[in-house]
């Protein structure tokens, strides 16, 4: 793991040399963030809410008739994931009863102000879109109100709401990048990592649900292709992030005291990213040859409209979701260690 850390960050600790660096009794330079589990779960659930909405919208606007199950599941899951978010954020405040003060101003320069407004606007889109979906699915009964709701232009809303969803999925990373914490701000790729993780975890969550209730194999295939690509992009972005962060990334990838490398490599990068991506690759390759065989069968007059259930895809989904959670967790906890390390902060402050 130490070797992995050195290889990915391009930085190997040199205690003898670093001991020579000037410091003030190794006291911390920065104040550590006190953000805890509420924020970790908010980042995770906010990513899911955003990603599910985007995937559902893509399936609704560009997918086939069979893909409607993705739209339906996606919009419901998006709203479900979104519901606890405001509560988590409010609980995290020093004075929760003053949460409305966030809405006093609209401040382009403050990532948190923009985040609050995007969460608010996206909630509107997610809520209305999911309600229309429920009306169309007949969950709201057959009275005139439900009929009116079902007639609303869901696709138009999807088009307008998707940018807000992307904003919600990515701003959290931008917010962390716009701080003085070395781990978060050294490389500017945290937003890109978070947004690709939002897509990968959401694709995993939707396909997990679909594999339980059963869905057309073709639809699952599309979803898993998307998940596969998002994982690949996430991996690339993470590697760029680690290389760009160098010494600042030690708190995340190192194995020393107060460093989170063990959790990061096992549950995030290894178990939650590379492993599910490899499994997904095998699955997609396997299906390609399988699909060819099936097409031969179809020529013989055997129709394949059967719904697919279960399978190793369930495991892949769980691994991806675990990776997404541990990405947020190690980033937040690593940020705390990073800001407590006076030497790293002074090194980072040299520009």
């Amino acid at each position: 793991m130490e070797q992995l850390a050195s290889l990915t960050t391009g930085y190997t600790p040199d205690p003898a040399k670093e001991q020579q660096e000037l410091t003030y009794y190794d006291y911390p330079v920065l104040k550590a963030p006190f953000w805890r589990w509420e924020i970790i779960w908010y980042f995770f659930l906010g990513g899911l809410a955003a990603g599910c909405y985007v995937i559902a919208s893509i399936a609704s606007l560009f997918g086939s008739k069979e893909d409607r199950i993705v739209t339906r599941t996606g919009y419901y899951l998006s709203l479900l994931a979104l519901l606890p978010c405001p509560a988590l954020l409010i609980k995290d405040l020093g004075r929760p009863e003053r949460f409305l003060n966030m809405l006093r101003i609209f401040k382009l320069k403050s990532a948190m102000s923009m985040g609050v407004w995007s969460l608010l606007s996206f909630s509107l889109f997610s809520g209305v879109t999911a309600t229309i979906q429920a009306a169309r699915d007949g969950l709201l009964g057959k009275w005139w109100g439900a009929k009116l709701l079902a007639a609303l232009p869901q696709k138009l809303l999807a088009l307008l709401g998707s940018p807000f969803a992307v904003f919600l999925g990515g701003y959290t990373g931008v917010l962390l990048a716009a701080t003085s914490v070395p781990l978060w701000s050294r490389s500017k790729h945290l937003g890109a990592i978070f947004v690709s993780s939002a897509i990968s975890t959401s694709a995993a969550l939707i396909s997990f649900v679909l594999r339980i209730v059963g869905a057309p194999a073709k639809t699952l295939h599309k979803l898993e292709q998307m998940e596969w690509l998002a994982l690949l992009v996430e991996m690339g972005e993470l590697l760029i992030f680690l290389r760009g962060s160098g010494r600042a990334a030690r708190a995340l990838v190192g194995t020393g005291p107060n460093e989170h490398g063990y959790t990061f490599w096992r549950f995030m990068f290894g178990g939650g990213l590379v492993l599910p991506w490899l499994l997904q690759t095998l699955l997609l390759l396997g299906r390609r040859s399988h699909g060819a065989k099936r097409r031969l069968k179809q020529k013989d007059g055997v129709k394949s409209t059967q719904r697919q259930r279960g399978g190793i895809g369930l495991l892949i989904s769980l691994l991806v979701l675990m990776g997404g959670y541990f990405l947020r967790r190690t980033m937040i906890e690593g940020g705390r260690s990073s800001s407590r390390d006076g030497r790293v902060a002074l090194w980072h402050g040299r520009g």
Partner: protein
Amino acid sequence: MALNRLHNFPVLPGTQRLADLIAPLRKEPPPTPQPAQGFFTDTSLCIGCKACEVACKQWNQLPATAPTWSGSSYDNTQQLSATTWRHVQFIEQIGRNGGRNVPPNLPLFEDRIETAKSNGTIPATPPRTALPFFNSDRWLMQSDVCKHCAHAPCQEACPTGAIIRTEFDTVYVQQDICNGCGYCIVTCPFGVIARDEHGDHLAHKCTLCYDRLKDGLEPACAKACPTDSIVFGEVAQLKEQARQRLGTLHERGLSEARLYGVDEAILDGGLNSFFLLLDEPELYNLPRNPQRPSNNVAPASLWTIVTAMLLGLMGIIYFRARE
């Protein structure tokens, strides 16, 4: 205040609550701008008496921190915090220059002792000479404080607008607006602003004695400083004073002396509360050239958008595909 006008009319129940609720939204006309005010903390004059720490605590009614023994120096305060807005550092430099006592590049005050013995009078020390018992060991002290940055990261990050620039161009946290979100704390590159976890859970830091400034008084720390190591005044004027002082120190052989935050290099605009240091900034736990966090918003957003567009586009391609 808005309610006073209402008192002439029969007040409906709940009006008070409503008024309280919308009070944070009310925008009052800003006070007339004054010349920018700030601190010049000249560490070459600091004697480490901690009068500034005490005066600050007294004036601002800040609770004492639980006494801890740092074991590293006389600095048991260790850091600025929500309830400590001035903090005196003690930097002990023993065995500098590899233990060699290298006197400054000045003629030594030598061979006068014998003269004194024979004459019976002690000759006056001619200016610009170093004493023969020169020792390069030294003890640096610095009274650290909020830098009141020209482009303050905490103020830029604050999502509620609680952190404002006052008419004196100082950075001030409005306690009735702050909701303790903690974003300012991670953006401050100097670790100044902090949340009071044992008290009201809100962000606190030096106010540059806003209340005293309003009444035409200088801040409590500057008032209490017995050596004028802490000087308060108009920023432009103080910067000139700092440059002159640096010139004097350089002339006297303190070639390592430097100014911190006077020019506009730090955080794209310099600091309204700046320092004269006698050594490298890192020794004082000051980052040499911290970057302005809000500068990261544009590149970080760009990468996010590029990634989102790539994934969205590929998603569209995947979902359009017909077998």
